[in-house]
């Protein structure tokens, strides 16, 4: 028979007390797990929003505008550099992005950055000036997650055109209509739902077809770059692209939602501090229960010491008991914390989806066990300080 078996036997005869002590710890871990789970779901929601804000990096030609001055006389500005990026530079941009992000995404072997190249040209439809945008239809949707085709369908053929909502409205263009851009015919495949951006005033056609129509083969105006991760070091990627690929300027776009994330983190840390207080209360609860347990079992402790238990073994017995309380409390706290998150999460962050996070289970058990062991320290120490004869005499 081992010492832990003695403890197990003892625990099994006092299940209720063990359960109540575990409940004390569970209340603390429940709040922590609940808050973490809600915070996690809230963060996920913000990440989803981040995705909708658009690309992480905008790559444009490296044009420098120089102010021309003679004395006090301003002679205007002169643009130095090309107005277009050569399409042949896209692989180098992509490789640079992948190389920087690869160490951060050990489990992903696919492309880590998505490039959405564009060519902007000013043209006319039925004598009305519009901007036609050549896009790579495979990737454009990946960087513009908010796009929705309100009528018709997306671009699938080289001569399909997707028309912005305002262009459609102003020019009376509908799916199935034929339009002509610089002598090249297109069929309107669909109308974009209103985005509230410049895209509403544009016509989107396949990049290659537009390049041919305007004699701009191999040229693009800009590239939207999106890293596949929401917490990518975007500035680092932009700097890397600037260093590796000449003739372009890559700019990291600071997301508005980043500040929202900062707020989220502040709220989470405040809530965690509050749950820390709850945990401290739980600690005192367990300490109280264990002290009561020591007093209740003074006779048993005396018996054990009279038949050869050392002080260390008595402490061990209480520590084993604390471990059992901690493990049970941690499990209960995890389950209750998730239930709390499911119940309250939607009231805290509208539209969030709460999910079980398995990694919080060992965290919950770990915290509960630590608290339980700490709370047991003093009562266990006290249990060893009685004289054996006093243990019996006090009865």
């Amino acid at each position, binding site marked *: *028979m*081992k*010492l832990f078996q*003695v403890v197990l*036997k*003892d625990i*099994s*005869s*006092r299940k209720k007390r063990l359960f109540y002590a575990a409940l004390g710890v569970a209340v603390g871990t429940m709040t922590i797990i609940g808050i973490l789970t809600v915070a996690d779901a809230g963060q996920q929601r913000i990440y989803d929003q981040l995705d909708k804000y658009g690309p992480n990096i905008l790559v444009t030609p490296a044009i420098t505008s120089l102010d021309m001055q003679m004395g006090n006389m301003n002679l205007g500005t002169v643009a130095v550099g090309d107005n277009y990026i050569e399409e042949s530079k896209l692989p180098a941009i992509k490789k640079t992005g992948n190389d920087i992000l690869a160490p951060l995404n050990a489990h992903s072997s696919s492309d880590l950055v998505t490039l959405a190249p564009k060519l902007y040209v000013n043209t006319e439809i039925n004598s009305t000036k519009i901007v036609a945008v050549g896009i790579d239809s495979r990737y454009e949707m990946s960087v513009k997650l908010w796009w929705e085709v309100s009528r018709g369908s997306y671009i699938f053929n080289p001569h399909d055109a997707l028309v912005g909502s305002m262009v459609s409205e102003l020019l009376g263009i509908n799916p199935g209509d034929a339009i002509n851009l610089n002598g090249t015919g297109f069929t309107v495949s669909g109308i974009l739902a209103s985005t509230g951006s410049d895209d509403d005033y544009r016509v989107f056609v396949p990049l290659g077809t537009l390049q041919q129509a305007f004699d701009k083969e191999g040229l693009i105006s800009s590239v939207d770059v999106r890293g596949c991760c929401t917490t990518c070091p975007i500035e680092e990627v932009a700097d890397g692209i600037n260093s590796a690929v000449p003739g372009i300027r890559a700019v990291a776009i600071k997301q508005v939602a980043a500040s929202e994330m900062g707020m989220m983190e502040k709220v989470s840390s405040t809530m965690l501090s509050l749950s820390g207080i709850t945990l401290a209360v739980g600690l005192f609860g367990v300490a109280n229960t264990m002290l009561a347990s020591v007093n209740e079992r003074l*006779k*048993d402790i*005396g*018996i*054990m*010491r*009279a*038949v*050869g*238990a*050392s*002080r260390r*073994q008595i402490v061990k017995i209480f520590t084993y008991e604390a471990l059992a309380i901690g493990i049970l409390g941690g499990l209960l706290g995890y389950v209750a914390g998730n239930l709390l998150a499911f119940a309250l999460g939607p009231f805290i962050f509208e539209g969030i989806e709460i999910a079980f996070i398995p990694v919080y289970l060992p965290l919950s058990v770990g915290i509960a066990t630590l608290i339980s062991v700490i709370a047991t320290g003093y009562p266990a120490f006290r249990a*060893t300080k009685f*004289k*054996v*004869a*006093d243990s*019996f005499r006090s009865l």
Partner: protein
Amino acid sequence: MLEVKNVSKYYGQGHTRVTALDNISLALHDGEYVAIMGPSGSGKSTLVNIIGGLDSLSSGEVHLDGKRIDNRDENSLVDLRRGEIAYIFQQYHLLPSLTAIENVMLPLTFAGTRADQSTALKMLEEVGLEKRGHHRPAQLSGGEQQRVAIARALVGKPRLILADEPTGNMDRKTGAQIMALFDLLNKEGHTIITVTHDPAVAELARRLIILEDGKITEDCQTAAACS
């Protein structure tokens, strides 16, 4: 083997001080069977507790095999309890959550020696309780519980057995069985000190010490020799 020198024990301080033992001295040899008698509050249990290191003394010394044991720290007292000295209490003091076998195995568990069921069963066999090994204390009679406590005391093969009114909670017949067991243990070589109120128990001992108000008033080689 055992020497108690000028031992006194007080409870409380000042005018509330109570003297439990008053300058007690006695010596025991290996294999002796001593009964300590006296009225309630005469200090019998206190003396046995001090001899066994379960309680501290106020003054004096206790020596075992020539070595002083009353000033030992808790760790070395644990060593004494794991081999030299065993206790048998009036209230049996078995752990209620453990079966008879497990209670008997307890000293071996704490001593870190191999604690298997066969050793415990052998001890229970010696006290005639092998068939009740898997019962918990609540399922045993007083006499049976005391026999389990005796088996638990014997499992560590102690030289000195200290018994505090071992038959105090038993009827005469059961008490006689327990005392017969003590007699057997003494014949096997165990040194026994038993505290008792019962003259019949004292008669079985080879030596009788009478305590009154914390002092030894008589120390006789037989019960009949004492007044």
